[in-house]
């Protein structure tokens, strides 16, 4: 492995809706080519953190730095430049329903490159075949299953060969096999494109299968209570909340049923 180079640095980030604080004082670093997991129970602010990182919601305090540039302190123009390096896969794909898959994937290419329509079509077909949707160019999102919509969303996210890929609950609503295939696809794309991946999820299988770094958000204390490689965390963390989450509450269940682990 090459020497770890910080790609995204989050410093003392505090996010709130009005007076209601969601998470405070988050500080962590995502290295280049990491698969970084943002985990925590439901409603702890994982998605809000993602929104702050991709530039959809301004944090109340703190910084999100991309290669040393503080995103929220930058000018609008510079921000847009940084955002062009992002690919975001939303929870249910968020494909534009009035456009075909080809048009969905082509839109970022048409907006941000000056390729000819023929070249764009070639790239669109390539991206769709990368996610296993070759031949589905003329389909509308409403004609696809949930898993296919997600893969199509991924094709759109990688249209511009982004440096950073963000995933919001990629395996939610997928069967275990599809979820696993999607995980493999994420790994494969990371390896071949050399992208940095940030994933918001609470799927334990994915967390252990692909994550190599993570941050654990807690809803009660409204801050992060652990960070690092999830496989290390489950083995060595002393915090009962983290252990309980990463073992699917095995200790809690065992206590409830009165059996020893």
């Amino acid at each position, binding site marked *: 492995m090459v020497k770890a180079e910080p790609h995204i640095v989050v410093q003392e980030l505090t996010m709130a809706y009005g007076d209601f604080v969601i998470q405070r004082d988050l500080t962590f670093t995502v290295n280049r080519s990491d698969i970084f997991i943002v985990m925590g129970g439901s409603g702890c602010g994982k998605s809000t953190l993602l929104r702050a990182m991709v530039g959809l919601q301004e944090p109340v305090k703190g910084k999100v730095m991309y290669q040393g540039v503080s995103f929220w302190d930058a000018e609008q123009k510079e921000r847009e430049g940084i955002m062009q390096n992002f690919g975001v896969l939303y929870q249910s794909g968020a494909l534009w329903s009035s456009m075909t898959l080809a048009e969905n994937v082509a839109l970022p290419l048409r907006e941000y490159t000056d*390729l000819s329509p023929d070249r764009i079509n070639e790239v669109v*077909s390539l991206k769709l075949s*990368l996610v296993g949707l*070759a*031949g589905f*160019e*003329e389909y509308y999102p409403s004609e696809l299953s949930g898993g296919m919509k997600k893969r199509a969303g991924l094709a759109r996210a990688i249209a511009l060969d982004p440096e950073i890929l963000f995933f919001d609950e990629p395996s939610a609503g997928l069967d275990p096999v599809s979820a696993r295939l999607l995980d493999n*696809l994420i790994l*494969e794309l990371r390896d*071949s494109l050399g992208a940095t991946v940030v994933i918001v999820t609470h799927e334990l299988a994915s967390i252990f299968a692909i994550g190599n770094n993570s941050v654990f958000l807690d809803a009660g204390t409204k801050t992060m209570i652990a960070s690092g490689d999830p496989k290390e965390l489950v083995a060595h963390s002393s915090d009962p909340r983290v252990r309980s989450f990463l073992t699917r509450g095995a200790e809690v269940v065992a206590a409830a049923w009165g059996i020893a682990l």
Partner: protein
Amino acid sequence: MKPELSFDRPDDKTLQIRLAGDWILRADVPAVGEVTEEIGAGRPVEQVAFHTSDLGRWDAGLLTFLVKVIDHCVRAGIHTDKSELPRGVQRLLALASAVPEKKGARKESARIPFLERVGDSAVRVWRSVPGMTAFVGEVFVAFLRLLTGKARFRRSDLFLTIQQCGAQALPIVSLISILVGLILAFIGAIQLRIFGAQIYVASLVGIAMVRALAAVMTGVIMSGRTGASFAAQLGTMQVNEEIDALKTLGVSPVEFLVLPRMLALFLMMPLLSLYADLMGILGGLAIGITMLDLNFMEYYNKTREAVSINDFWVGLFSAAVFGVLVALSGCMRGMQCGRSASAVGEATTSAVVTGIVSIVVATAVITVICNVLNI
């Protein structure tokens, strides 16, 4: 560095494709034609290999090029040796061909002749008739259940809708009906002044507003305001599977969602139309006093004399009918909505169009009936 393409033949069966420079999308990547020409020219090729030690950066630009080269080779029965390609490229190529293109997935985009399209649309209109009548039937059945006290809907939904399509519509109804009264009086005044019959402006405005225009204008406003909102709301519920959730619970969506909306508009439209009558007459009065030197009592008396109680009932009846029509078209388009954002937009447009068309048609029918009955 510019992407460069050259060829080499290390032995008589192998063609080596040498890639150099940056093969990125933004750069002008060489055309595949050069490769196919090279393969076609000279001695037959059995194997294609790559040489990439001078290759700089690469991205989808290189991949789309390679996909086409490999495609060509597969069709020509030529073996491709990918081992010299960068590892990332090899893996992506493997990924791209991992799931074969689904047979029959590609859609035929044949051009449909004009006549066929006209025919198709006509058939589609005809096929939508049973759906419409079925919906009206369902609403009628729900209405009967309401009369027998069996209909299930939340009382608070009804009151909320009454508030939204009643009190909250007053400002826009005031504005439009005052203006319509003003315009009528103004146009009438110019003509009637020639005969010195200015006072008949009061009859003109009074009868026109009370008998038809107040109801029609209110109907059009409510169609754009409330009918559209019903369609968008129910359409979004359809997209979110909320309507399915009601069905699986055994609650009829027509009773639960359509009935309170229709009831609310049925009750509120006559009241709004009554209010529009008053506002329209006030608009006419303003012109009468300022432009025609009529005094208030004169105008008032003439209006009372001209407008009969029958005009009044016809206006209220029309308003109630329009209320039902607007609610029906809004709810029907919402319930028939497809499952996408654009479908909600279409449903809303179609609700407003259907609403306004049915108001105009209903006005014509009511006018003819009143004429026959001498009302």
